[in-house]
């Protein structure tokens, strides 16, 4: 791809989704954007970008932005965060929230739903430990496609064998033809929404737990810092933040600190808490 086109594309992604398109990721362009080019009746990705530069087709730039997201995910991914959710978060909320009150979890890059459904299964298994505290989940992602899939709760045989213990498959899924569908009762406490992390969080309300995993890796420093600070402002003073295994708050913000010995788990910093109180 010529460098003017590459630069145009990089700027577009930065503006639309915050993604950094570095030259090393150039290899993704053909596989991700080729299908869109063909659908538009264009012979190459080069031509697609060229036509985007001349026209101002919002629908097309959106399709390109969405196609450049990486939606890789699986049930109980990395295990530890879900173990910590069970051993740290649930007991804390059971202790510090009134029975009958609602606590809210936000999966901020939920992809096709494996992460929120994993949490929903834990909540169900641990119902008695919650001591009457209700937990609702907001599952959001920038991509309509994955949110639609998450809503449908339909997974391939391959997907249900990645990370999901067979006992939970039997308990919470039904077979639909070649696919497996999440039990409707599990979807009850989850709401699904298309949402871009670059937009204001104001309309989302506040949360007790935020899962923002394996998405910061796509942003530049400034965007990471901005998103983390805005998450802090939406999180209860004693709330929890989970990041992906390759992500951290260190060097990005003072709003959070890692919880010692608990990989991937962060809490709001005491100073920040004092300011809020």
């Amino acid at each position, binding site marked *: 791809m010529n460098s003017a086109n590459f630069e145009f594309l990089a700027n577009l992604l930065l503006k639309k989704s915050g993604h950094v398109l570095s030259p090393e990721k150039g290899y993704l362009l053909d596989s991700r954007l080729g299908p869109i080019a063909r659908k538009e009746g264009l012979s190459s990705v080069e031509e697609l970008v060229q036509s985007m530069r001349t026209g101002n087709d919002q629908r097309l730039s959106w399709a390109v932005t969405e196609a450049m997201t990486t939606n890789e995910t699986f049930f109980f991914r990395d295990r530890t965060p879900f173990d910590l959710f069970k051993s740290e978060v649930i007991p804390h909320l059971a202790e510090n929230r009134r029975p009958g009150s609602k606590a809210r979890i936000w999966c901020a890059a939920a992809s096709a739903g494996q992460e929120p459904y994993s949490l929903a299964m834990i909540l169900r298994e641990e119902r008695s430990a919650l001591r009457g505290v209700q937990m609702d989940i907001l599952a959001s992602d920038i991509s309509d496609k994955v949110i639609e899939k998450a809503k449908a709760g339909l997974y391939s045989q391959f997907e249900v*064998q*990645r990370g999901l213990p*067979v006992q939970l498959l039997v308990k919470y899924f*039904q077979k639909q033809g070649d696919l497996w569908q999440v039990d409707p009762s599990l979807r009850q406490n989850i709401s699904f929404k298309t949402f871009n992390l670059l937009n204001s969080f104001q309309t989302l309300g506040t949360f007790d737990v935020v899962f923002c995993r394996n998405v910061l890796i796509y942003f530049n420093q400034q965007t990471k810092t901005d998103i983390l600070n805005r998450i802090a402002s939406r999180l209860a003073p004693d709330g929890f933040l989970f990041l992906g295994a390759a992500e951290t708050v260190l060097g990005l913000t003072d709003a959070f600190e890692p919880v010692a010995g608990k990989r991937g788990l962060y809490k709001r910093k005491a100073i920040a808490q004092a300011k809020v109180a």
Partner: protein
Amino acid sequence: MKHCLVVDDSRVIRKVACRILEDMEFSCIEAEDGQQALDKCRQAMPEAILLDWNMPVMNGIDFLKALRNESGGDKPVVVFCTTENDMGHITEALRAGANEYIMKPFDSDILSAKFAEVGLI
């Protein structure tokens, strides 16, 4: 080194599974049917068993029920690995004492994920 007994009537599947398992630092023993598998278990109980369902002589589910009645037969971690992929078969396997269940086709990702699930690796 942990031992894994691979029970399948297809030689090709046994070879593929063993290659993956050996990469996971298991030493593999093979059996072509449930009866052979039971004989091998009576000689020495393996830590893990990867078990097909449909086989001549003795099928996987009958083997599993027999195994769990043997002395020491509660020890091996049993992972079914079969083309049977409906809820009925899976629940029957779990009821008979299977620890995990792989629906074929499988690859090394699925095999290692399932073995990790039951604490074998």
